[in-house]
């Protein structure tokens, strides 16, 4: 189980350091497979049918279906590289190490009720969530942000696995629904961004903001 955790952590660092979107998608796919394997590893030979089903479904969606959708989106939008992130790739990896330290520090005093999972798993989960958030904030391309969303969601799932192996079924169903809706929105956003603006830079969405026009609205209404 710790091996899986270590792989997950490494995949996050890789993600933080990679500029190519295709590589990033593959890393997220690998992460999905690793996360999908977690219930099998965690059950330690105590393999019920529902754990198998859970693992297969998760690997199929997170490891294959969603990354495949992302690569389709990638092919359609002609964007291949993350250019000019807000925080450079080297600096991002350094920040990643900092985030890992933060996760370690925070999880050190967290206690899981009634769970025998190792502390490292929880740290990994926190690290996944924080990495996802960090990627969302620091990258320009909307595709990277969708990927970051998936990473964050992986983190949430790992917490679920860490907490209990028996009941995450329901939780996971809810989360999967959440993910598919989120991806649906993201996909729409990507598609429309590309079509309307000829680019996928989410930071240029300010063009749509009405913040600059709202004072006029107020003075208009008070006339």
């Amino acid at each position: 189980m710790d091996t899986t955790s270590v792989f997950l952590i490494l995949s996050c660092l890789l993600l933080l350091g990679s500029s190519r979107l295709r590589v990033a998608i593959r890393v997220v796919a690998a992460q999905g497979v690793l996360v999908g394997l977690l219930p099998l590893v965690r059950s330690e030979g105590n393999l019920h049918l529902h754990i198998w089903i859970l693992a297969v479904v998760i690997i199929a969606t997170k490891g294959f279906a969603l990354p495949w959708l992302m690569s389709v989106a990638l092919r359609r939008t002609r964007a291949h590289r993350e250019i000019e992130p807000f925080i450079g790739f080297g600096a991002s990896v350094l920040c990643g190490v900092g985030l890992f330290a933060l996760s370690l520090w925070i999880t050190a005093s967290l206690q899981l009720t009634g769970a025998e999972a190792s502390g490292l798993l929880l740290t990994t989960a926190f690290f996944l969530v924080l990495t996802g958030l960090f990627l969302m904030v620091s990258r320009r391309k909307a595709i990277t942000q969708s990927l970051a969303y998936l990473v964050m969601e992986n983190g949430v799932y790992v917490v679920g696995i860490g907490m209990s192996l028996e009941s995450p079924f329901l939780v996971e169903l809810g989360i999967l629904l959440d993910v598919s809706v989120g991806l649906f929105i993201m996909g729409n956003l990507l598609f429309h961004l590309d079509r309307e603006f000829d680019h996928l830079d989410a930071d240029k969405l300010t063009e749509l903001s009405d913040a600059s026009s709202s004072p006029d609205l107020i003075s208009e209404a008070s006339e």
Partner: protein
Amino acid sequence: MVLFLVGCGFAVLGGVIALLVNGSKPARWIATIGVWIGCGLASIPVISALGDQAPHPVQWAWSMPGGSLSFALDGLSAFFCLPILLVSPLAALYGVGYLAGHARSLKAVLFFYNVLVASMLMLVATRNGLLFLVVWEIMAISSFFLVIFDDEHAHVRRAGWTYLVATHIGTAALLAMFALLGAGADSLDFTALAAMGRSLTMATVLFALAVIGFGSKAGFFALHVWLPQAHPAAPSHVSALMSGVMIKTGIYGLLRVLTLLGAPSAGWGWTLVIVGLSSGILGVAFALAQHDIKRLLAYHSVENIGIITLGLGAGVLGLSWGQPVLIMLGFGGGILHVLNHAVFKSLLFFGAGAVAHSTGLRDIDHLGGLLKRMRWTGLTFLVASAAICGLPPFNGFVSEFLIYVAAFSGLHAATPGTVVLAIGILTGLALIGGLAAACFAKAFGMVFLGEPRSDHAGGAHEVGPTMRWPMMALAVACLAIGLLAPLAVRGVLPAVAVVAGGDPGALLEAAGGAIRGLTGVVYISVTLLLVTGGLLLFRRLLPRGKQQTETGTWDCGYARPTPRMQYTASSFAQPLVDLFRTLLGTRKRGMAVRGFFPARATFETDTPDAAQERLFAPLFQSIDRLVAPIRRMQHGRVHEYLLYIAATLVLLLLFWKAGTR
């Protein structure tokens, strides 16, 4: 009671089917039939509730904390159902004709109209604070969508925006009020809230919140800013329903809350009297200065809400002084005026809508001579004008008469308080009545008499039967309530009994003098009507067999008169507007005519709303300045929004971590 709710359901169902149906005409009819069936079903329990057989209250559990789905109809609820049940079906029928020419999709307006009708009916029957707020919000939102029907015009969008802000300021006050009302109670059911004891300070705070919250819906002066914008913007049948009926839910709410607060203090009554007087006088003064007929009518709603509130104030003072005549006639006059105003104000909006539908104009200064071209519209508008001015034999007289008699009873009681009240009410009501008469002389005279002031007005034609019949029905209702005045006073008894908590028998006794007075007036009115009818018949028979010629309206002997030589609405109202100029702040632009052969001259006046210009615009601008730095956070950059979330999460984690040490 279940029948009542089924009726509401039918109204909504009609709206939903209208959404699904293709084609404008079937959709309009289906929605209207939904309202008719719904109101028909709902009227059965309402009538039995007015006739002393209240339907069995219903109550279902609701998962919301403190909430329950409880409904009941007592005298007060049932009486407030009357205007809804009377006006909604007629306005829906009127809408069938009024909306006929519209090119755009009518689905939204049909659906939200039906939802509005159902929500108003549910609102007055609700017996739980939380449910009340929910239904209140449904009512506000559905009417908002009706206001912005013509949303391609900027002024309509602005009116919708103003309405949305105004109604939510009211809702905010109501939210605070119900939260305070329910503090310490297990449930927000009205029965539970009424049973709780409160200190007078607490009750006064609650009362103030109720006045602000319900006053913004009813249109108390200074909280009325949405009315003169929203009513001209909405389609006419919607204006009729909103102005005639929906704003009365504010009055209902105020009365209902009064029943929950326990014994009122005299200060509350004085507050209502002052609010009523200021709304009444300022409302009619602003109405005088208007050119847009629907805007003028909107200000008259403020005026009439003022009259209603004046009556309620007298009633509350009567409660705190223990004077049954003041209680009965104050509350009775106010509550009866709710019904009366609903009837004649809807009729006036129907008339204004018919004029706008036929000529495309709402500006009084471009109309004229419509009585010849739109006989029925003109006649019914005249009836409603007489009714709103409080003239017998129409209904407006009855309720104002009750308030007058209440004031005179105050003179009779001759304590300092009652005398001040009496003088306030008598002078105030007389001033309001006089100004209203001047205003409607202007409105009716300029629109329907004289010669057309524009080609559009000249080409006017009578509207179709679906619009004509509702107007005629309401005109008949104006006359009927006026002639059945003693019965109308008895009809309002159950409602007063709920508010005053008194014995209906004693209340009826208190109203005895007023009923006798009204009976006398009815006899005189009937005689007057018979004489007028006889004279009309005589007038018709007299020229038989003689040659008749038709010519233009009297032209003062000018050789070449033009319609532009007629009085305009502004010139007619000018002396009175000048009298109130410090209050109104009318702006005049133009130049004086000089010399014997003056060149081209222009003149225009414009009366902006005082409360909006002097109170709300500066207020909202200073709020705007205050929060401007915060707006810098709201810049549309997705990354920084995400950063806010991430930073908050990390900070919370650090905070928690620091706490675990």
